[in-house]
């Protein structure tokens, strides 16, 4: 077995402590091999997306090195040197109008599910799917993680063929999936692994048989199922080959019973999900992560009483324009504080000479610029973390007018080591020359 010495080896003890399990229990992790193939750096992409736009004047910094941050970005001040803002307004900006729908009849809200695909809803895969597929080929089977905060909302992650990667919104279930589902004791290893492999062999065979008899449009649904089973098989076949090291520690499993639909629980719910994402990323159990924070058609029912915006609903505030800018800026700032929370969780975790955040890019997107207009030009874009030195940081850049959103997605793939010429449809090319360090 190849053993690659890496600076962030998992602490088996801390992992087990977090799980409340005995020393004999070992989650099946596998990453050394892939890290070896990526030059010793585990690069991660985490997307954080919500809707209804921002107050532009309070969001955009002037082009150039970041000085005093605009009000909405203030929570990111401790991480300012690791922030890349892509400026919109006036002279240029990222433009997503090409992908909202075939006839471009509607703007924001409809653009939400296209933000990571660069095409009309799900006709092509999103970038997290593309990146995870490449990692799977390289030997890391479960690199993709899709989480959300509100069940039933629109999602950003898609497979090809209009098949949605429905985000996991239940924190307790996510904990089980990440940290408890695939654990076995060494004594059980042989028999349980063999048993699971036997069962999954059977299931795979039945799924393939099934896929062959159902109609063309449904075959892709069964393919999604097959892929999910395949990931478990790959994880099992690589079982027990890695050693947990420092920094890998699951959060306590405290999410059981929290309401995932009540507007009032959003802060607690989001914190649970961010803690789980941070742990999964630090443990290198996920490298392509999407977080759908809030959409649901503009979130009519969402209110923010914990920051004293108890009425009206989020959607109404976004449509109130300048009359509600004060409220909207308070809300936008709260969302950015959640980005800062995740940045801090990763930015304080050493990985060799740098931190997990330095090997990560948190890509922050919104489905429109100013909510009042449903405007899909000049989209607000933030990247926190250079992605292993790919992106320039501590700076705000100004793209040319109507720079295609697709080119941004292509550059993000490049940052993650996926060399593609284009993402989505209509546009090729990238923004590397603008964004690269």
């Amino acid at each position: 077995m190849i053993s690659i010495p890496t600076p962030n080896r998992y602490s088996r003890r801390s992992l087990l402590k977090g799980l409340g399990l005995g020393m004999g229990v070992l989650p099946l992790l596998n990453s050394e091999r892939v890290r070896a193939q990526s030059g010793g750096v585990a690069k991660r992409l985490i997307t954080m997306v919500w809707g209804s736009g921002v107050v532009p004047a309070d969001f955009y910094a002037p082009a150039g090195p970041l000085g005093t941050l605009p009000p909405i970005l203030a929570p990111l001040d401790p991480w300012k040197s690791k922030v890349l803002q892509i400026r919109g307004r006036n002279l240029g900006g990222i433009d997503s109008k090409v992908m909202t729908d075939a006839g471009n009849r509607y703007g924001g809200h409809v653009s939400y599910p296209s933000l990571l695909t660069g095409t009309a809803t799900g006709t092509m895969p999103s970038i997290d799917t593309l990146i995870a597929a490449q990692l799977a080929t390289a030997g890391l089977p479960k690199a993709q993680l899709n989480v959300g905060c509100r069940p039933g909302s629109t999602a950003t992650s898609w497979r090809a063929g209009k098949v949605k990667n429905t985000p996991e919104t239940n924190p307790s279930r996510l904990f089980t999936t990440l940290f408890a589902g695939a654990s076995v004791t060494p004594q059980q290893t042989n028999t349980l692994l063999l048993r699971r492999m036997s069962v999954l062999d059977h299931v795979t065979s039945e799924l393939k048989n099934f896929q062959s008899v159902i109609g063309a449009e449904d075959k892709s649904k069964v393919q999604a199922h097959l892929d999910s089973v395949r990931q478990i098989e790959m994880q099992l076949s690589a079982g027990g080959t890695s050693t947990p090291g420092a920094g890998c520690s699951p959060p306590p499993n405290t999410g059981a019973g929290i309401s995932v639909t009540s507007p009032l629980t959003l802060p607690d719910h989001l914190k649970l999900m961010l803690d789980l994402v941070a742990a999964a990323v630090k443990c290198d159990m996920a490298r392509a992560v999407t977080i759908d924070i809030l959409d649901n058609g503009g979130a009519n029912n969402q209110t923010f009483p914990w920051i004293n915006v108890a009425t009206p609903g989020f959607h109404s505030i976004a449509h109130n324009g300048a009359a509600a800018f004060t409220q909207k800026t308070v809300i936008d700032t709260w969302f950015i504080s959640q980005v800062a929370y995740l940045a801090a969780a990763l930015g304080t975790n050493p990985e060799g000479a740098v931190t997990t955040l330095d090997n990560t890019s948190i890509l922050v997107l919104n489905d429109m610029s100013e909510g009042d207009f449903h405007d899909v030009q000049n989209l607000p874009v933030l990247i926190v973390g250079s992605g292993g030195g790919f992106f320039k940081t501590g700076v705000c850049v100004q793209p040319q007018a109507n720079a295609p959103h697709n080119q941004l997605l292509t550059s993000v793939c490049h940052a993650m080591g996926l060399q593609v010429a284009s993402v989505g449809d209509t546009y090729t090319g990238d923004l590397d020359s603008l964004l690269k360090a």
Partner: protein
Amino acid sequence: MTQLAPPTARAADLQHPGLAPPRRRAGICTVLALVASGLVGGCVGQVGKTGPDDQPPGAVGGGGNRPVGGAGGGGGSAPADPLAAGVRPLLLLSAREYLNTARDLLRDTTLTEDALPSGDEDLQATPSFAFKEPHNVATQDGTLLQGAAETLARNAVAHLATLLPCATPPAAGAAETTCLNTFLTTFMPKVYRRPLTTTETAHLMSLYATGRSTLALGFNDAIGLLLEAALQSPQFLYHWELDPANAVPAAGTVVKLGNYELANRLSYFLWGTMPDTALFAAAAAGQLGDPAVVETQVRRMLADAKASDAYLNFFTDFLDLDTLADTPKSSAVYAMFPALAGPMASEIKSFVTGIMGSTGGFADLMTGTNSYANQALASFYGVSGVTGTALKPVMLNPAQRAGILTSGAFLALSGDTDESNPPRRGKAIYTKFLCGVMPPPPNNVPKPADASAGGTMRQRMEVHDQNPCAGSCHRIIEPLGFAFEEYGGIGEFRTVDNNAPVDSSGTIVLDGQTHPYSNAPELVKLLAASDSVKGCFATQWLRYAFGRAETPADQASLNAATGALTSTGDIRELIVALTRSRTFMYRTATAMEGVLK
């Protein structure tokens, strides 16, 4: 006084012409005004569930959608083809169906919905489709399905003797072979919900041999292994109980469902679970090709207690009752709401269960005043004499209340945080009871004036609707909402709004006739008597039954179901007619289907 036209125009008509990027308010408004001037408005009826956002499963590709108006509701193009049947999209068992099936198959009720894929996806984001459907297996779901199957199999092994009619474990040799065969021929067909093919049986026997040899399992544990595998297999997890005898159908042809396919379609529709012994027996005897036999089975099933599970599921989904407790309300204005939300939802469940267990009357549902309340809810309704926290039968004031649309639950769900919300209430009625479809809002929507500007909510909304941007939709939905101005944000009865008397009067055009009404009880009586509304209600049941939107191929079946409701007034007769309809007993095959091995 305001007027409302029923949804009739074609779907294509509502599509805004290719707009410039939404930057200039004036440009958008102009185009919308043009659309509005050429039509009743931007909001028109169409066959639901397809939209710019999400192409749903089951939408007929390429054929184009056209209106299905229900009886008397229009359509107006080609006559309904009595031999047509809709397509059947592949659906995963929902979490609810999975748990119900585990209960009936294994007598296991240890799992909860949290142990299963989050499953339910609210397709309300897609225009007018009210029901939740399970999504495809997402990346992380395989692990959950594995965990659930392992738990169920482990539990089953612990009480295997109650599931298998032979001594367990049997002695090695002939007894073991006999017992294994018994398991494969009597129990496994319940897991697959149909007889196994010889190939499927061979696969399981091969896995059994692996369990006994390679894995060194005893008999009971090897049976557990088979269960663990079967519960993760598509035969268990998907609604696709193919009749192994079927030939490969050509794409586009209408094929009759096999007996087991139909038995399962009936059982999951009417009970939310697997078929029982009697239904399996009817399928095994090949009797379910006969609509008369199907009807007998359906009447038996509707009389069973398990039917109330489906009734409640339908109405909970249809009215979004499970979100009531999470509906935000101003604590300053509605401090009492948290204590009322639970009883309000329970009231609807008792109300619906009571009707479906007695008359099945659509008119009772829409206009009935015999309801249920505990002390807090009775006080809310102005009914005296009820004490305690348990719901008790009450008679509501018929001058103030009539049926589900005037219930606290419906009005609180569709009300605003601190006041009424006529567009939201109107939209709920327009989409749920008239099957109208609303496009996404246009790209610039100025807000109506705040209460501080003076005037009632209705007066302020009417000013707002002079704006052509907002007016195209609001002029359609708000007359419906204005009828409910006698109710505040959580449905409390009122006669004054913002210091002025409320005006809840209007007119509505239904089935080609113009009707005046003075308030909500009068409007809902008009709705309850309308053929369009009955046609829409039948359409909702079809959507619920199939997990997809209606298509032109469903038209004749939908007409039959609507006709049953219109002639009897009994929702259960609608269900019976739907289950013996062409589109329920047949389906249109899609491309690249194969035959089961």
